[in-house]
Structure formats: C-alpha cells, structure tokens
C-alpha cells in the first residue's frame, strides 16, 4: 500500500526538553488521519515538521513521496497548511486573500482569480467575497482559511486544530468541509483535542501523549482496546461517590458519576452492581466506551 505520509522514529526537542520522543505514523493516500492529544502533547510540533516549518532532530519523514529535510521545496509544492490560528489577512477581502495565495503559489493572475471565484462558491463565501475579513464570523474566517489551503489543489492538507475556538454551528460547518475534502481524494492530517471530532472525521486515529503515539487505529479498534461496555453509576453526593470509588478501584470519576469497565455481559454488569450494593446509586447506564474512556485509559497508562 502506498502511504502519502510516512514517519519513522521522529524526535524533536527544544532546548534540551524532548517534545517528540520517537513517533511512527503512516497515512494512506486519500484518507483522513487524526492526531489526537491534549495541549502540549506535541501535535503542533509534529504538523510543523511534516509541513517543513521545523526540522526533525532524528527520524525519517516523507510527505507526498519526498523527504521533508532533503526536498522541502518539493514537499511545499504538494501540501498546504492551515495553522492553529486563522492566518487569513484581516485587512484584505476574502477574494483578495485567495488571489494573493494563488499568486504566491505562482499561478498567473487570471488563473488565480478564477480559482478564487470557484473556492468562494464552494465555501459559500460569495456574498462576503468583497468585504474585509475583519467583518467575518469565526466560522467564515475558518472556512476561508481552509479554502486558502486549496488554491493549488494540494495532495496533502494539514489542519492544525481546525475547530478550536469555534461555536458549535461553525464547527459543524468545518466538519462538513473536511468530509467533503476527504471525498474528493485529498489526504488530510488533522490535529484535535476533541475526541468526538476525531471519531467523526478520521479514518485512522493516532493518540499522542507526551510526545509518543500511545495507540493508533480506527475509532472502533481503539474503543475495542478498552474492552466491552462501560457501566456508569450516577451518585447523589460526593460522600457516596467516594464510597463507591473505594469499592471499585480503577473506575474513572467524572463529576458525580463513576465509569466502570466491564466485559459487557449480564454477569459482568451484575458483579459491579453487587459490589456497590451498600451505596445509594441514583441511576445506572450501560454504554459503549467513548473515545474519552480510551483516551483517559491510554494517557493514564503512559503517565
């Protein structure tokens, strides 16, 4: 299988502090991969190295068939990076931003204008095209930001936390956009700290914790790692929570509820309930583990 992104043994440190401690990552062409992790896990550093902005200390990184250290120019011709903060030019209009990006990608002006118009239509920005970006909503600016990345039909698109700071509606817009991009055959690597986002958008997910890949696979395979079902016990107060928690070591507390992993069988669930028989439990729910469960388990193990 041909991989569009291949990373082997990637390390990087800043001033003696290791940020990436040996990352391996492979993304197949035309798929969406998510790099999932909390703040400070090394997501942005990874994206910066893959997009030639930072040099790796060690390891091999190939993007779109070229080594990022040996042939950064070839890589840059084939990728596009949408950074963590919207890097649209607020003083210019949406159209001017797109035309400028096309010109900087060395399209002749007429072609750059034509591309700009098509992208404005595709991203539903025609009405706002000739207004300054400073008048745009957060979601519109993000859509423009992503459109800027598509001016020259990149093979690989890097999206660094594309929905951070957006309201739920704008987030949904961006999700639709990414899904559409994936359908058009672009390889997308996105970083996120939202588990739901990775679950929804990505074909493959790599969980990044403390500069290492703690686990990778599809959303389902990651969930399977954790086990069968989660029993959620909702408790009336902190004292009851403490009592239940003491009886069930390894369970995860969240507000006033306790999440206990079981094998999902009736026997397994009954066992849990018998253990906490002496504690007042308000409500019991059984559900498939969420990525939250996966994430917390993996990061606890590595911590």
């Amino acid at each position: 299988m041909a991989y569009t992104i291949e990373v082997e043994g990637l390390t990087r440190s800043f001033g003696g502090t290791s940020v990436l401690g040996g990352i391996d990552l492979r993304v197949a062409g035309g798929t969406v991969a998510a790099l999932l992790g909390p703040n400070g896990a090394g997501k942005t550093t990874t994206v910066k190295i893959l997009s030639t902005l930072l040099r790796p200390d060690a390891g091999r990184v190939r993007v779109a068939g070229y080594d990022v250290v040996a042939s950064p120019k070839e890589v840059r011709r084939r990728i596009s990076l949408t950074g963590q903060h919207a890097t649209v030019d607020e003083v210019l209009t949406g159209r001017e931003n797109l035309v400028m990006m096309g010109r900087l990608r060395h399209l002749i002006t007429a072609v750059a204008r034509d591309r700009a118009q098509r992208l404005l239509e595709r991203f539903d920005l025609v009405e706002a095209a000739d207004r300054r970006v400073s008048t745009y909503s957060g979601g519109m600016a993000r859509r423009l930001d992503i459109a800027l990345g598509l001016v020259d039909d990149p093979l690989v698109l890097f999206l660094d936390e594309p929905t951070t700071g957006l309201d739920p509606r704008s987030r949904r817009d961006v999700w639709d956009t990414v899904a559409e991009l994936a359908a058009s055959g672009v390889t997308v690597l996105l970083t996120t700290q939202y588990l739901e986002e990775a679950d929804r958008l990505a074909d493959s997910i790599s969980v990044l914790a403390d500069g290492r890949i703690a686990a990778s696979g599809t959303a389902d395979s990651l969930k399977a790692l954790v086990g069968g079902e989660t029993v959620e016990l909702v408790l009336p107060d902190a004292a009851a929570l403490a009592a239940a928690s003491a009886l069930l070591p390894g369970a995860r507390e969240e507000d006033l509820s306790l999440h206990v992993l079981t094998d999902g069988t009736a026997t397994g669930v009954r066992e849990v309930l018998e253990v906490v028989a002496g504690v007042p439990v308000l409500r019991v729910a059984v559900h498939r583990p969420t990525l939250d469960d996966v994430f917390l388990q993996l990061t606890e193990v590595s911590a």
Partner: protein
Amino acid sequence: MTAYTRTPGPLVDVGVLLGRSLRHSVRSIDATISAIVLPLLILMVFVFIFGGALEAGTPEYLTYVVPGVVVLCAAFGSSSTAVSVNQDMTAGVIDRLRSLPVVGTAVLAGHVVASVVRNVVSTAVVVGVAVALGFRPTASVGGWLAVLGLLALFMAGVSALSAAFGLLVSSAEAAGALSFVLLFLPYVSSGFVPPETMPAVLHGFAAHQPLTPLIEAVRALLLGLPVGSSGWLAVAWWGGFGLLGVLGAGFLFRRRAGG
C-alpha cells in the same frame, strides 16, 4: 499543477507581498495619516511656538528646520515596519508563507519596499506643507533627485533595521517602542538647533551621529549649497545600517521562523 499557469521568480513573490503591504497602508489610513500629522505638528511647533524665541525670523528658521522635520518624518514612518513584521510573525502569517514554495524573506522585502513608498508620499506632503508655510527650496532638478535618493536610502535602511527589530521582540507593543527612539533621536542632531549650542557631551554626539550628515546633506541640496562630505557620509552610514538590517533580519528570520 499544470506548468503553463506558472509565473516564475522571487520578484513576483516580492511584488505580490508588496501589493499586500501597500493595501494595508491604504486601508489602515489612520496609521498612515498619523505618520504624516505628527511631523506636521512638530513642524508647526518649531516654526510658530519656538521659532520666535529662537530669535530667528520665521522664514529663516523654517528653512533651517524643514530638513530635520523631513528626516524625523521619514524615521518615524519607517519604524512602523517593526510593528507590521512583528504582527505577521505572531499571527502565523509568516509560518503560512513559509509552507509555500515562496522565498520566505520576500515578505520582509515587501514590507520594506512598501514602507519606502509610503514614506516618500508622506514626506512629499510634509514638504508641500512647508512650502505653503513659506519654505523656498532652491534645489536644481538634480538636487531634488539626490534628496529623493538619499531619503529613500535612509527609509530603506531604517525599515530594514525595523524589520530586524520586529523579528527580535516578542510583541507588537514592544516593536512599537522603536518609534519613540526614532522620534527623539533627531532632536540630538543638527536638525532643530545647531549642535554648537548644546552642552559639550551632547554636542559631540549631535555633530557626529548618523542623522546629522543626512540632515546636512538634505539641507545643502534643497538650498543649493555645497554638500561637502556630508552626502557621502550619509550614504555610508545609512547604506551600512541598511545592510546590517538586511543581514540581521535575514538571520533572525531563519532563527525565529525556523524554531
């Protein structure tokens, strides 16, 4: 990815980014206007408020002070490059440009050239107002061209140094501080009063600091007087500072942007 759509070359990149910087200048018109209004106010203060006390008849003092005000205007206006460059750095614009097949420093060149264009315009306005107030330059066409050349070199030099400063400091506020230094430096020169009238310590600095030969050369050229060595001294100082700024900005750009 078809080849025929391509136009090659780093000059195109600089041109596109220059267009961007100029659009910024035109649309942030308040900043551009304040870069013109401040030197005009200073001109008025010196001519109408201090001018009488300086015991020079108004036209003569006006003639003396205009070159200093022009240089102050150019210095102050050019220093705003530090803020523009710093904003691009902190807002991620430079990161994005670096992920393109574009010469990274093209964005710096765009800012510097835009700064020169902007300041040539604002300097022309200041000279125009001075003429309206009674300033009567007697320069030849060649003299005017030499003034333009000297001032453009000075603006490019200050802009390049400002670009380097903008890359060095961490915030736009800090980058803005450079304007204040450049706003006060011209006072300790031959721009507003002759250095001989200053205390000995300041006199030495004022007579030899890099702004003085520039102001002297501009004054001599505008009034059709012999320029002497000040012209070459000004070229040497500001050409040198410009080179230093370009090298420094290039170095800092690679270091800061490269991480």
